[in-house]
């Protein structure tokens, strides 16, 4: 299984952001991580990306322990954060070239061109981040994540700042990558997107996993929702609203 999280706990001083969280994501799966603000979604993704060290617990990427062999594990994953963080003095093309060098991508030119076309970044290759809109910068971050063929894709609010066409293309891109065999973990507040794209949903609240399954499975559980509920109704019910 490409993503395995076991008893992940992360604290910030006295505050526990994620508490004893365990789950896995298989190849070809798109798992939606949803929950109210402060539920621990971003902390989970950042721990999985190797940005935050877990206070307790284990994370494995493609069977590689992230804490024991971080370099090998990171080589296999791509994290696309909600806030597009770019190097202010590198152009779009230079960002892609940098990632290609970091991940030792051979067919950089072809892949770069394909992504520039796919994400509609044509004509912006020589632009600095300061000259791009927020949506464009988000696209550059996503291009940097997708230029390598990572087996694990982590998206934190991937649609923030994108226009309707961009949103549609991004949905198609995520599904295509999963079909190609990637394990995708996606955090979003856009429940209709999660319902439409994800094969499974994990609902978090106050650092805990409170539900895990397909939308149909969750809807069929009497303790979670009334029969035939959609994801939004399930979400509101399990989070106590």
């Amino acid at each position, binding site marked *: 299984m490409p993503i395995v999280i076991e008893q992940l706990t992360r604290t*910030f001083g006295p505050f526990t952001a994620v508490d004893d969280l365990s789950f896995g994501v298989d190849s070809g799966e798109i798992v939606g991580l949803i929950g109210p603000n402060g539920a621990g979604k971003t902390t989970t993704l*950042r721990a999985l*990306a*190797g*940005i*935050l*060290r877990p206070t307790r617990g284990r994370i494995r990427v493609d069977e590689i322990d992230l804490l024991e062999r*971080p*370099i*090998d*594990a*990171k*080589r296999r*994953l791509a*994290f696309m*954060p909600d806030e*597009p*963080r*770019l*190097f*202010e*003095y*590198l*152009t779009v093309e*230079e960002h892609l*070239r*940098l990632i*290609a*060098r*970091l*991940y*030792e991508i*051979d067919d*950089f030119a072809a892949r770069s061109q394909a992504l520039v076309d796919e994400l509609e970044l044509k004509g912006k290759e*020589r632009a*600095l*981040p*300061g*000259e791009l*809109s*927020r949506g464009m*910068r988000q696209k550059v971050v996503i291009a940097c994540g997708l230029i390598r063929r990572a087996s694990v894709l982590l998206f934190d609010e991937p649609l923030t700042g994108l226009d309707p066409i961009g949103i549609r293309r991004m949905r198609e891109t995520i599904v295509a990558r999963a079909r190609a065999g990637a394990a995708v973990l996606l955090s979003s507040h856009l429940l209709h997107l999660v319902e439409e794209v994800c094969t499974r949903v994990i609902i978090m609240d106050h650092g805990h996993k409170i539900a895990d399954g397909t939308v149909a499975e969750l809807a069929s559980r009497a303790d979670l929702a009334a029969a035939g509920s959609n994801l939004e109704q399930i979400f509101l019910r399990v989070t106590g609203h």
Partner: protein
Amino acid sequence: MIAASLYITLCSARNRVRVRLRRLREPRYLFGAIVGAAYLYFAVFARMAGRRGRVRLGPPPDMSLRLQTVGPLVAALVVFVLAVLTWVVPATGAMLSLSDAEAAFLLPAPLSRRQLVAHRLIRAQIGALFAGLIMAFAVPAAGLGRLRVMLSTWLFFVTARTYVAGVALARTRIALEPKRLARWVPVGILGAAVLVVGAFIIREWMLPASSVADVIDRASHIADAGPVQVILAPFLTLVRPVFTPWSLSLALWWIASALTAAATIGWTLSNASAMDVILEAPPANRAAREAPAQPARAARVWTPWQLAARGRTEGLFAWKGALLIVRSASLGTLRYLIPLASMAVIAGSTALRGGGYHGAAAFVATLATMIAAGTILFGPQVARFDLREDFKNIEVLKTWPVSPAAVVRGEMLAPIALVTAICWAAIATAWLFAAAATPNLGVAWRASIAIAAAIAAPALIGGQFAVHNVFALLFPAWVSVGNERPRGIDAMGQRLILLAAVILSLIVIALPGALAAGILWLAFQRLIGAPTLVPAALVFTVVVAIEVAIISELLGPAYERLDVMSIERGE
């Protein structure tokens, strides 16, 4: 709008004080506060108390008289030069920068741009008052004297900051309407003033100065000249109250100073329509606002070399660092270089006279030596193009599959190369002209000293960068990211502790190499003479380089363990 601005300003100031008091619960801020307060006490109050016990407070009577006559003239001349530089060097002025919240709340609000500038002016008052307060404590004066200095410097800072903002607005309006002659009037007046004052400066500075007193005398001669006096009149109204004791004339000078401030504010507000252009970058987006002032497109995307598809991680970081250095360098850099160069010229010229040497070649050699020494000592402190700067991107770097030690080494390469290149250029210049400044030294000595200095420089520079990065990784909470820094006495104390630790660590790093080099020197200098310096410097450099390599390897785990949440964020 004024009521709203005052509300924002006062509430923010009150809450800032609360936050600073609350953060004293953290040991690092508490220690910092203790050290900062102790520093202030010993540097200002204790020294004053000691002085008070021995002699009367303030300078001696003859000196005081001289200060009152010459001081304002020299200060007015300096302010005039800075005022001219503000037009030459592009700067938006902190006053026009909106915070994220201001951009989000005030830009969509039904406010005119004039009101927006007025709001920024009101918000700048707390900072100007605080600057005045610092000045009041820094000058040797009694209780009421301090109040006088505080009020005078507050008026000065208000005017100066407003002027910088006004220049930014006026420049923008000129750029928008270059054909409207009215827009060029301030430039024309200033240009004529520069010609007049420049002629007097050239006349006075035909020969190098012999001492600091000589520099002050000449500056006062320039400022005292009839036409220059007229030009400097508005600047004199701003600086004169600082030097004038309590009297009726002080009240009159304050009125004049307030009128100058009012005129500056009026002029700035008259150009407020250009605010829209200055805020053109998406205002609610911090990243975009923090982007560099946009130079010409060709220069902006100039790349020193292309990144190879394969190679060591260190090379990748060196490439990234080089691009950062090349592309972040702008005319704004002149703001720092011009005062530094001026100080170097004055210091070089003074040192030259003190040594009894003459001629342009000797002057250049002395100046270049000072620049080389200054670069080694302060370069690594100033050129923060390493992990200290890249901490703001740490969330991206941490996701990369690279060896932590390689990241640490790679981050240091570009700034080491930059500072070393500047230092080598200065050493080479000093060596070329050294014969004039050091006629008693033989060719072999001069060459040996220059080569040894060139060999040892990268080690000294690299050692300092290593120490800075050690502290950045081991104590990330103590290192500020980018240009934004935490403020307050506690933060100042933290920086003092860090500075002391850096100096101590640097001595520890340099010691083994220096000892080895010293032994070599003692063993062979009688046999070989001056050229012994070269292998001694080589030994020193090799030892320090090994230490730096070991340090970077040892820092790997620290980088891996680094908690991104613990990095200090500026205010």
